[in-house]
Each structure stands twice: as C-alpha cells, then as structure tokens.
C-alpha cells in the first residue's frame, strides 16, 4: 500500500525573474481562488512584480508566494481577517529582520 519510487528531476525553475507566478497560479498554490489574490493585493499582503491593471496580467515573485501561504494559514488557523494578517506579516518580517541583524552582530539566540 505504501510504495516508494525514485524520481530524478533535472529541470526546475526558481520563482522570480523570468518565471513569475500568475495570479491564477498563486491562487492555486494556496488552495484559493483568484478573488482571494485580488484581496491580497488590495490590502497589500502581496505586491505585483510589475504593476498591471488586469489580474490576468499580474506577475508575482517568491516573496509573494511565501506571504500568501502565510496569510492563508493565519486565516485558517486563527480566523483572522486579511487586514490583521497584513499587520501580523509586517510584524513578522520586522522580527525576522531584527533577529537577523542581531545575529550578524554576534548577538541574539
């Protein structure tokens, strides 16, 4: 019942310059729909790589995927609204930046 197999993968893409994620792809990666991505853009949780009017022309970087996934989990696990999620993500980024700055000075954990 629990089989195992080996797969060799030669071709991968790095999400970012040259291989952006479209709005539909970002939504699909988060188990959501495109309207949800539109809301993320409206509240500023994710930013387009190069701002365009129509959602089908939107392009996103890796950071957008990371923040969108995190927002999805915050919604699901804590029932927070997207505005609160945006604030939590801002604070989280700031905490990580400060921790990283501390560690470059040999301080912190």
């Amino acid at each position: 019942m629990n089989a195992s197999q080996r797969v060799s993968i030669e071709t991968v893409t790095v999400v970012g310059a040259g291989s952006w994620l479209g709005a539909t792809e970002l939504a699909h990666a988060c188990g959501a729909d495109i309207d949800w991505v539109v809301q993320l853009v409206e509240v500023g949780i994710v930013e387009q790589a190069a701002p365009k009017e129509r959602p089908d022309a939107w392009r996103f970087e890796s950071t957008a995927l990371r923040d969108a996934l995190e927002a999805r989990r915050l919604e699901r696990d804590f029932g927070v609204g997207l505005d609160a999620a945006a604030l939590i993500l801002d604070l989280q980024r700031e905490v990580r930046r400060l921790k990283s700055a501390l560690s470059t000075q040999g301080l912190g954990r």
Partner: protein
Amino acid sequence: MDFKNYYSALGVERTASEDEVRKAFRKLARKYHPDVSKEADAETRMRDLNEAYDVLRDKEKRAAYDALADRVARGGSPEGDFQPPPNWDQGYEFHRGAGAGPADHADFSEFFSSLFGAAERRESARRSVRQRGEDHHAAIEITLEDALKGGEREISLRALEADANGQPDWVTRTLHVTIPPGVHAGQFIRLAKQGLPGHGGEPAGDLYLEVRIAPHARYRVEGLDIYMTLPVTPTEAALGAQVQVPTPIGSVVEVTVPPNARAGMKLRLKERGFPGKTPGHLYLLLEIALPPADTDAAKTAYRQLAEAAPFNPRRHLGVDA
C-alpha cells in the same frame, strides 16, 4: 507505528467541545509559532498540532477517530504496533473542507495517512470534475555553498499517485533535485507536475520547495547579503594592510584594510553576495585579534608600544588610568 493521541497533542479532554478544541489549538499554535517559540522542536510540534487539529476540528474525522480509539483500547494493541483494522472507516465520509488552504496533508504522519489516506483516495477517485491537482509545498535546507554554486539534493516526500489500476495511492517518492546556482533563502524552487495528481485527465499540481540556508560556521546570510567576521591584528588595523579573505564560493580575494580601522567596522565586497536584480554584497566585520604576549620579545614589544603611543581607551569614562 504508534497510535497517536490527538487529544493529548492539543491538551484537551475527549469530551472537549468544538470551541474548546479550537481555543486549545490556537493557544498552542501561538506558543509554537516559529517566530516566537524558544523551543528547539517548535516546527515538529507545529506539525503535530496541525495534524491533530485537522482531525479533531472535523466532525466526521473526529467521530471516526474516536470510534477507532475505542476499538484500539478494547483490543489492547501493543505499543508501537498499531495498524488500522481493515475497513475501520466504513460508514464515514471525509471531505476536505472548502477554504482548507494549502495542501498540508502530505506533511502529516504515517499514522494520519494510514487512517485518512484511503478516504482521500476514494474521494479523489470519485471526483468526476476536471481539475488540476493541488500544489504541494515543502521546505528544503541547503548549504550556503550549494545555494551560490548550485548542487544536487535528495528529498523524500509522501504523495498521492495513480497506481497501475488508475487508483490514487500514497507513495513515498525520493526526488533527486538539481538546485540551480544563485537561489537564496525564501525563494521557491518550482517542480512542474510533482504535486498531487489531477482529476479527469487534468495535469498534476506543482511542487514548490521553499529554500532555507543551513547555518554556516563562517558566514551569516541576511537577505541577499552575506556577513563574515574578519579578524585582523592591531598592527593591520592601525597601519592598514592587504589581507586574504576566503569567499563563500571557494575563492580567496585580497582585501585592503584601511589605516585606523576599528573593531566593528564593515568592509564591503561589492556584489559578492547572492545574485539578484540588485545583487547582494559580502560584508566583512572587522574584529581585532591580539597577538598573544607569551614570549619575552612579545611582552617587550607591547611595553614599547605603550611607551611610544600612550593611550587611555577609558578617557570617555572619565577615568585617568
């Protein structure tokens, strides 16, 4: 395989209401959130919590799990030897709720998939709609050197795949992945069609691997920049010097330490960090390392220096000596 007690994972009684289960989960999810937790095993604890909550928040799954726990208690299966009885879940239907979010199930334990994997298989096979498979996410930790220069990694994942009869089945897949050079922390590597299988002839979803850089003994990474502590002697710091510095890609470069350099001073090696639209830099944080005064000659030299260049580093503290 151990029988997992999802109630104790969340610290609630079996009689706990939906509301109590939710509150317990949220409290623990805050405690073990990787950004605030001081616990070394926070990530594993979070995964266990997510798994327990996935079952206990869902009425059908919880009822099926409770019934099975009763059977196990009556049957007294020895510790570590649990196998779900055949058709244990007959009569229960499990659905992935709308808005369930990213497909985390593949990260759950073998225990979880042995219980609910079969139901997910049935549900998946029953779907007649044409739909692309769900994307799957995982993290991959690579060395700084591999991130900069590229490398190869193996990663094992459990995933739903169609078997010879076209029925989806859980398989453990070991992926041998070529890491492209220049990936940095927080970027996603996308593996096309390595996610969950599609329905009605639609393609599988993709697998996204979030890149994490393993801690390095010598270098620290911040965004696209790389930091390293560079020890210099007091003589090199005072008079300036050309010193050799090893870079993360394995080369050695000559760096000029300017005269009157101080501890904590930052030297920048332009664009020797991670590549990007705005490439990162390699920063060298100067640290003054004292030559040991362990010979008469060295002691004499220190005394001569003190005489030749009288210096009170504590003057700003308002003391004379």
